Structures are given as C-alpha cells and as structure tokens.
C-alpha cells in the first residue's frame, strides 16, 4: 500500500514555499537536470538541460517577518556549458549539466564543480558589494584624467554598492573521458575529486587540469564482452581513501585507493542475489542502480534502482539491510514502460541530515520518503495545484485495486511524463528541493524545522 504516512510523521507536516525556475523561450532548455545543496545549506544550485546553472541563496531569517524566514531566492545565474561538437567522432556533446558538486568553503568565495557529458568545470562565485571610488588617474566613468588637472592625491575609498555576484570559470578539466560522465564527487581531503563515466573513473587534483589518474577501468579488451557499466560513484564522506561505484548489474563496489593505483579489484562487493520468481525480460534493466549515496555518518550507502531504494551497511556485503518499495505497482507495467522509455529513467535518492529518513522521486510528480526508524512512508506531490503558500502537503496514495479512497490515484492515471528524478535534502534542516521537469519546488518543515 502506498502513502501510508500520516500527519504524525515528522516530515509530512511540511509547509510549502515554492520557488519557480525561470523560464526561457526555449522550453527544452530549462528542464532541471541536477539539484545540490552546499555544505551549509545556505546555497542551492540547479543545473539544466540548456547548460545553465542557477544558484539560490537562503535569505537570513528576519525577526520582522517570521513567516518568510529562510526562503530561497535567486542568487546567481550563469551559462556553465555550451553545446560542443567532436569533429573526430562526428558527435555532438550535449550541454546538459549532469552533476553539480559544491566544494567545501575555504574563504569568502564559493566554488562548485559542474559537468556535462565530457567536461568538468570549476566555478568560483564571489560577491562584490563594495566599489572603490576616488581614483587619482581616472574619473568616475573610468576615463583617464588629464594629468594637468590632477592637483592633489587622494586615497581611493571603498563605498558600498548593490550586491553583485560574479562567477568565473577557474579550471576546465577536459579530455579526460571517452564515454559519458555520470558522476563527480569531491574527496574529503578537499584537494582531489573523481569523475566517472560508463567505463572509467578518473582522479583529478582540483588545481591541475592537464592530467588525471585513471583509478578504475572496466572496459573489456573486447567490447563484445561488455556486460556492465558504471552508473554512479561517490567518495566516502570521511575516509579519503574509500569510494564506491555502482554498476548496471545492481552491484556496488567499495574500493580502497591505498590498495593499488588501479582500483579494478574491489575491496568489497555488495550485491543481492536476484529473486528468480521475479525474473522477466526486463530484469536487467530494473536492477541497474541509478544512484548511490553515502550516509552522512559514512556507515551506510543508499542505492536506487527502478523500483526500490535500498540501504546497505558497509559491513555487510551479502544484501542490503533495508529495502523500500518505491512504486512496486509498476512491476506489471514494465512492458509499456519499456516501450515509452520510462524504464530507463534514472531516479536519484537522498538522505536527510541525520540519516533517519530517505527520499526519492517517482512519477506523476510524486516523491516518496521513508522513515527508517518508524518504518513509515509517505507519498507527496509537487504540483502547483496542491501548493498554496504555507499549505501543508497532503499525503497522496496510489491505489492498486481494492478499496479506493476519494483522493486516490489509480495506477493507470499516473502521468509518466511528470517524473521527479532529482531531489536534494538540506544537510541540517528539514528543507527539501524537488525538481519537477522545469520547476523547482522547495519545501520546508515548519512544524519540525530541527532535524531529529
């Protein structure tokens, strides 16, 4: 049964405030393709299919207007990637932003990595809110003064100005990948990061762009022998030597960079034996892992495949410790989902800050949350109709036959074009960002704003 979570579940008492993504004339360009909070949660970055990055900043809470505390407004917008053409292979390289990862903040500036299929870029975001005035050699417009008119010296003074956010590309990490990049992950050492494509994972230094180290290579000698690809990868949040990567066969490999320069041999292999009673034409597709995330504690991993999310304990390789059904009612519809390509959708998953709740998206603009402690789950919808300001989100339910309640949605009336692939959870508070096609929804839990 879907959508059981009642109003007493912490996360469902959510007050709504949504911020709509800016629309461009090209309707295709602003489908959101990635969402990521920074380490403090103050900034929220989104990337879209048109190669643009939009950064939102949370307004500081104001005592004067308690209801508008902590809302996110647009902070900066810039074009990160442009379409390119690989002449050697006659391939167009899409500008779609696949992933954004924030670097830990080390000074007043913020930095993030953004990547498309082939190229990773390091962007530096700086603020300017003061302007020097009173130059000796140039006037207010910047024109050089006639030296004969200069009779005295003055020290330029910094005067406040309207806040200006400047973004500049600091590094461009190009030509590292033959196949399509699917993930990037910053190491806890804050000096290196990795990028993964279908068959290889490279390790980069943030300051060096002309070379990278290949640390995983699963390309077979004969491409006819190809049986699986890398689908996602992430560094461990605390141990700078550990990283995990997931495969299209549903397995996870934990690798230790201390063991060897080339980490083809995993240190741990996490995989669950397939249930033979569930075998179908599409078994291979639905077992492919679309996302993997370490918990904040570093003890667990969260994976998403087409129908489930699973929690794995790093200490147990044989099977996940928890499995949650996201939308098992789709299991009988895999054929039509294969026809319309929905079966290839790559859903992401997210932990809350205390690792007690996990979240993932689904169809019909539904997203699901699972409380690991109470075992309660809830289905919520991100839609304009159901989102009056400060309205509490109502739990939704998908009925699969049997008794149908008034507001239930039947499986056959689900809109499969409305899919929530990208979600993000604030690192400390109960604030979530949901990307629904070209709209960004931000929900806050006002009732329980502190994470438990």
């Amino acid at each position, binding site marked *: 049964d879907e959508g059981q979570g009642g109003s007493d579940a912490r996360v469902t008492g959510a007050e709504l405030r949504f911020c709509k993504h800016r629309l461009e004339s090209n309707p295709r360009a602003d489908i959101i393709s990635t969402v990521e909070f920074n380490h403090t949660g103050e900034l929220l970055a989104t990337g879209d299919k048109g190669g643009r990055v939009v950064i939102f900043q949370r307004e500081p809470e104001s005592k004067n207007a308690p209801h508008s505390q902590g809302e996110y407004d647009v902070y900066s917008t810039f074009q990160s990637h442009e379409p390119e053409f690989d002449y050697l*292979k*006659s391939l167009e390289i899409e500008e779609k932003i696949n992933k954004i990862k924030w670097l830990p903040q080390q000074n007043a500036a913020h930095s993030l990595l953004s990547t498309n299929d082939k190229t990773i870029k390091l962007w530096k975001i700086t603020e300017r809110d003061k302007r020097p005035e009173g130059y000796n050699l140039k006037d207010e417009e910047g024109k050089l003064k006639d030296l004969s008119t200069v009779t005295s010296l003055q020290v330029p003074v910094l005067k406040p100005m309207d806040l200006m956010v400047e973004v500049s590309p600091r590094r461009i990490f190009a030509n590292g990948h033959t196949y399509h990049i699917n993930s990037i992950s910053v190491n806890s050492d804050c000096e290196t990061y990795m990028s993964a494509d279908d068959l290889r994972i490279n390790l980069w230094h943030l300051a060096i762009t002309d070379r990278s180290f290949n640390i995983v290579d699963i390309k077979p000698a004969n491409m*006819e022998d190809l*049986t699986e690809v890398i*689908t996602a990868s992430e560094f461990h949040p605390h141990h700078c030597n550990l990283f995990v990567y997931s495969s*299209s066969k549903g397995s996870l490999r934990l690798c230790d960079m201390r063991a060897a320069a080339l980490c083809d041999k995993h240190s741990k292999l996490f995989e669950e034996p*397939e249930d033979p009673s569930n075998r179908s034409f599409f078994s291979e597709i639905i077992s*492919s892992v679309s996302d993997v995330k370490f918990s904040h504690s570093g003890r667990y991993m969260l994976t998403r495949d087409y129908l489930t999310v699973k929690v794995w304990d790093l200490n147990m390789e044989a099977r996940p410790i928890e499995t949650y059904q996201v939308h098992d009612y789709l299991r009988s519809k895999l*054929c039509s989902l294969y026809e319309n390509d929905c079966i290839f959708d790559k859903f992401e998953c997210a932990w809350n800050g205390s690792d007690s709740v996990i979240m993932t998206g689904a169809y019909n603009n539904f997203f699901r949350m699972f409380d690991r402690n109470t075992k309660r789950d809830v289905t919520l919808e991100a839609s304009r109709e159901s989102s009056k300001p400060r309205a509490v989100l109502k739990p939704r339910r998908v009925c699969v036959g049997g008794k149908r309640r008034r507001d239930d949605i039947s499986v056959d009336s689900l809109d499969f074009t409305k899919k929530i692939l990208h979600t993000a959870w604030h690192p400390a508070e109960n604030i979530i960002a949901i990307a629904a096609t070209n709209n960004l929804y931000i929900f806050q839990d006002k009732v329980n704003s502190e994470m438990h």
Partner: protein
Amino acid sequence: MECALDAQSLISISLRKIHSSRTQRGGIKLHKNLLVSYVLRNARQLYLSERYAELYRRQQQQQQQQPPHHQHQHLAYAAPGMPASAADFGPLQLGGGGDAEAREPAARHQLHQLHQLHQLHLQQQLHQHQHPAPRGCAAAAGAPAGGAGALSELPGCAALQPPHGAPHRGQPLEPLQPGPAPLPLPLPPAPAALCPRDPRAPAACSAPSAPPGAAPPAATASPPASPAPASSPGFYRGAYPAPSDFGVHCSSQTTVLDLDTHVVTTVENGYLHQDCCASAHCPCCGQGAPGPGLASAAGCKRKYYPGQEEEDDDEEDAGELGAEPPGGAPFAPCKRARFEDFCPDSSPDASNISNLISIFGSGFSGLVSRQPDSSEQPPPLNGQLCAKQALASLGAWTRAIVAF
C-alpha cells in the same frame, strides 16, 4: 511476469531503439544500449524456443496422421521433461537457485532437449540411409508407408546399437558431447526427402515398398538396444550413436536447420555431406552419391546454426544468462554466409526476425557501433526494420566500439 508484447514485438521495438539511439543528440548512450541488448537477448531466447516448439508441434501433427501402429514413436518424442506444448516455453521462468547454472531459463533447457531429440532422430535417419547393413534394423520391417512417415523409422533405427556401444553420456539429453557436434537444430525435412522408400535405403529397410497405410508388423515396438521404455532417458542414451560410429569422415556430423525455409542441411566436419560422400573412400556411404535425404538439402546451401551463436553468447556474457553446457569445439559456419544467401520468403517479418536474430548472435558489438555517417537514411519505422537494411549495415555494426 507476463509481458503484453510477444517476443517478436519486443525484438522489433528494441532494434528500433538501438537504431534511433544512433541518431540521438549527444551520441550513443552506452548504458541504455547495453540494457536494450539484454532485453533483445531475453526476447530472442523466448522467440527461438517458441519457434522450436511450433516446429515440434508440427512434427507431432504429422506423426499423428500415421497409422496407429506408429504410436510408439510418439512415445519416442516424449522425452522426459519435454513440455507438452509451446506454452511451457515461456514467458521466461527461471528455475530456482542462485548460481549461474541454476538461473538458466527453463525454456532454454527445454530448447536443448529439443535439439537433442531432433538431432538424435535425424542422425538416425541419415544413419539408416548411409549404412547399407543396418544393425538389426528391425524397424525396416515396420517401415512406414506414407511419405510423412519418414520419421516413423526412427525409433526402430534408433534401436541401432553402435558397434562398440554408445558411450555413456552421463546425463539424459545433454548436448551432444564430447564430440565436436554441439547444438544442431534438425528438423525433419520434407518427408519425401527422407522417405524410406528411397531405393538407396538398405535392403533391410526397404520395406517401404508396402503401400501407404499398410500396417507393418509391430516389430518396431521394442528397439533391441534400448533396455528402457521409449520415454526413459536411457532410451536415448543407449541409442545415441557415438560420433565414431559414423566413421572417420563423419565423426562430427552436424545437422542444421534453416528457420526460414525449414531446410535441413547436414554438415560434416565443415563440409556438406554430399561433398564428403562424393569421395569414393567414404566408408559410411555405400554409394558415392549423397543420399536422397541430402539431395534436396544440397540444393540450398544455406545453413543456420543458432546453437552456435547461443554458445557464443554465453561465452561473451559471462554469467549473464547462465552457463551454456560446454559444446567442445563446434563447427562454426561463417556467420556472414547466411546473409549473403538471403532469400526473402513470403513472410517478411518472420525472415527479418530470423535474420536479425542471427545478427545479434554476434554479441554486443553487433548492436552498438557509432557510424559517423550522416548520409545514412534512417530505417523506415514501419514496425519492422527492413532486413535488407539491417543486413547492409551489418558490417558497420560489427566495427569495434573503440572509435566511440
């Protein structure tokens, strides 16, 4: 899980996806194409097993037209584990177990059994024609009258005990091992071709002079060599002629079936049998000319050897779909050969599928290979990929993926 689409539609849809991915913006998505190739393989397995079941059913219907004294031959076909109908073949259901072997789809296992069965019978049929002095071919006396009774000889001749005894195969109905004849796909050819009335047939087996419908003595009832009833595995095991029985020449006889024209060709060590037997030194052929059973087959040199490609698949997809029983070093007809001899039949869809099944037996690289060919016309998306286009681009498809 039941799929609303049949295997053929799934194959068609999958091929369309792969083809359209080649023109999509951003280049070929390796992950997606890999997943589609898995669906293709799964659907192909089911399609093949369904085809064989269909052919098997057809064969049974032919048998049922025979006089009742040939009923025992129906038992001959009732190999243990053989499904009664094609419905048992699919949808894909795996037997339990976690290891690769256990995960082999039941349909595939049954397919092997079918292969075994047909190979056995066809070999015995040919054996009958080639050996002038059949060993106790009591079945000859019971030679069926009708042309369609070609196979009715088989149980009797299946009783033929190899001169030095059949080697113990260990397991019932496992693929022809250890010899170099792996998974052939025989189908009884047009009855006339192997009609026991053939004058070349051994004298003892020339009972076919009896008019059709005559009831030969029931001497065929119990094959001498077989200790067990027809339905027991022992029947086949004991009766299975060892490769060496055919003599040096025919030690690796392979009978292949063309799914499109249903023509059976027997191949010997890589040669068509008539070539082999044309040699005067061939010990297994009384005459220097090929038997009639092969005459018609010789007319068409097309060979289809899906068993081979299934083995190849499993070598490639290590552990993906379960281990294929080892087949030794099988005769490997050139895969390209069948494409050159492409003869469209009346059912373009079926021939498309058959040929495309052959294409994708060549592994994943046969599916994905970027063609920087902007002048290439996209295929007509009229439900089925045009086989000729698919064949024309085959060479391109098999190019290695390194350029991508």
